[in-house]
């Protein structure tokens, strides 16, 4: 049976690490009307390749087309449509120093994170966890008046 429409999917794309390859991938999404929820890209250590992780959504048919169309790009080695994966995302949150620092610290610890920088007026915390947990952390952090929240894209690896 086809799954419900607009399921969320994480796709890993292994590409030749050459100029404009990211543009090729993102232009494909834009040109064919596919969504990008988040996107992360970095070189694969010890190779001339890069790993692009894209969180997207669409019907089964759309996801299948995304995978096939990505495959068609000449510098694309491999497209992995994740099924059983470990998925992580990180977030940096800046709080005023006047907030209750021990509460913030406990909150971060509860989400496998911690304080990464303390300045005269601000502290910066970092949490890396599953996307849903990141969402919950951000919600919980609201009561400490965060002044800036920077969320990273998803990285995933097949189990």
């Amino acid at each position, binding site marked *: 049976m086809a799954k419900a429409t607009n399921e969320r999917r994480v796709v890993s794309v292994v590409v030749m690490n050459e100029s404009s390859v990211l543009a090729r991938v993102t232009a494909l999404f834009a040109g064919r009307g596919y969504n990008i929820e988040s996107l992360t890209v970095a070189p694969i250590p010890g190779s001339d390749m890069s790993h692009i992780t894209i969180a997207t959504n669409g019907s089964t048919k759309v996801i299948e087309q995304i995978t096939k169309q990505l*495959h068609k790009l000449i510098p694309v080695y491999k497209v992995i449509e994740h099924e059983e994966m470990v998925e992580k995302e990180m977030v940096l949150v800046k709080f005023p120093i006047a907030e209750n620092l021990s509460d913030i610290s406990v909150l971060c610890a509860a989400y496998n994170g911690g304080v990464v920088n303390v300045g005269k007026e601000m502290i910066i915390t970092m949490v890396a966890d599953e996307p849903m947990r990141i969402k919950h952390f951000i919600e919980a952090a609201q009561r400490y008046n965060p002044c800036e929240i920077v969320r990273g894209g998803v990285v995933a690896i097949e189990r």
Partner: protein
Amino acid sequence: MQMSGAQMVCEAIIAEGVKTVFGYPGGAIMHVYDEIYKQNGFEHILNRHEQASVHAADGYARATGEVGVAMVTSGPGFTNAVTGLATAYMDSIPMVVISGQVPLSLIGTDGFQEIDAVGISRPCTKHNFLVRTIEELPRVLKEAFYIARSGRPGPVLVDIPKDITVDIGEFAYPESVDIPSYKPTYKGNRRQIEKAVEAIKSAKKPLLYIGGGTVLSNASDLVRELAEKTQIPAVETLMARGVMGAKNPLLLGMLGMHGNYASNMAMSETDLVISLGARFDDRVTGKLSEFAKYADVIHVDIDPANIAKLVDVDYPIVGDVTQVLEKMIPLLDDVNTDRYQAWREILKRYDELHPQSYVDSDEVIKPQWAIERLGELVGVDAIITSDVGQHQMWAAQHYPFDRPRQWINSGGLGTMGFGFPAALGAKRAFPEKTVINITGDGSILMNMQELVTAAEYKIPVINVILNNHFLGMVRQWQTFFYEKRYSETDLTFQPNWKALAEACGGIGYDVTTKEEFDAALKDAIKQDKVCFMNVAVNRFEDVLPMVPAGGALFNMMLPQKKHGEEK
């Protein structure tokens, strides 16, 4: 061997065996043109517009099956080429376009005639390159040709900054290509092919659905063999006209929006679609939920992304049509052709009920008559190109295309102005063949400057202008769907076609009767000059049958019956 980047470009073109390059010089590509001046390995045709250069290279590629090459300068030279790239991309035509670019140091500074060519062409090329060093240039050129012609073919752009054409480097043209991330699948999966064969053997109403991929794969003989051996009837798409051969008794005709009755009914009633190199375009399928509703689908395509893109497929086979058919045909030795006899008879009756027809006239030339007459006079020997519109559909419906690559038209993108320059390319590839561009009074003006090119290089192509003083296809839609509000489609104001052709060094004929048509065509074939045959045709003729956009294939608007046939 040490040489400049410009020399490398020429050496690569020669090494690839390209005989004719179409192009237009300009600042950023001048070093390459300087080398073209000095060499004797290929000829260069100076079109009078970059769009025409790319269409001409495209026509050359479609007629020969080889990679066409066009060359343009940066900025506007390149942007003019974009329509040509997109046209070739949509029809999967192997082509390499080389564009000049501003020097590397100027890229990103909004320099004179600078435009982001790889950015603009990304969605309308199979692949593109911005060359960054002289060292990589030989490899890039080799890969460009390889990518253009391998797998599902397509146009490739090589954008070369001016300073790299001047730089000196070591040139050894690579013998082979290894792109680890690009490995097209040619061989169809044996197990899948066996399953498809079983499906064919157990079907009652199978139908061969033949697309342009069979032309690109040079699979025509195998397609005919498959049909002959199994006695399965066939329909062709617009891009596949000629594959089965005009007189093939198994060919029902063209299907789709302007397909004939039997073809569209066959697709609506078949129980097994055998799709060979076709991609289920919306102009073919009509309403998707009604398309081949009762059928299982075998889909053979070299591009996996085409499979199950629009229609659910029961037997997907990724591979080159030729290689798949070579495996498939021997497995059908014991096929029982009688099994499909009843089906063939049903389709025969459909064709008798509503044959491809029109009502001829003694007072005015009917465009369909002109096409049929062309077929009678030049037939299988000629290469026919066309522009886009009513004349294109009439040509596809009424011309007796008898071999692949005889019919050259812009199917996917639908580019008006394609036919004339494409005819120049085809004629240059096959100088001994009569090349006729079937066009309209709208389309021909979109690249009419090529009269000058054709006259200068003595490329005697014949432009048969089916002149209805309308943008006919849009007019037809306005008649049917916009209550006859003919918004901006009336082309009553016209140039003097004969004088126009003559002013550019060609010949013009004004044709208003059937006798004049024959006389003008016979004269035009003898001439060594390009010509315009301005054929006045019935103004309000419609292309029929017609499936309104988004409608089901079996809901066709049909032509009225010929006199004496009314029931």
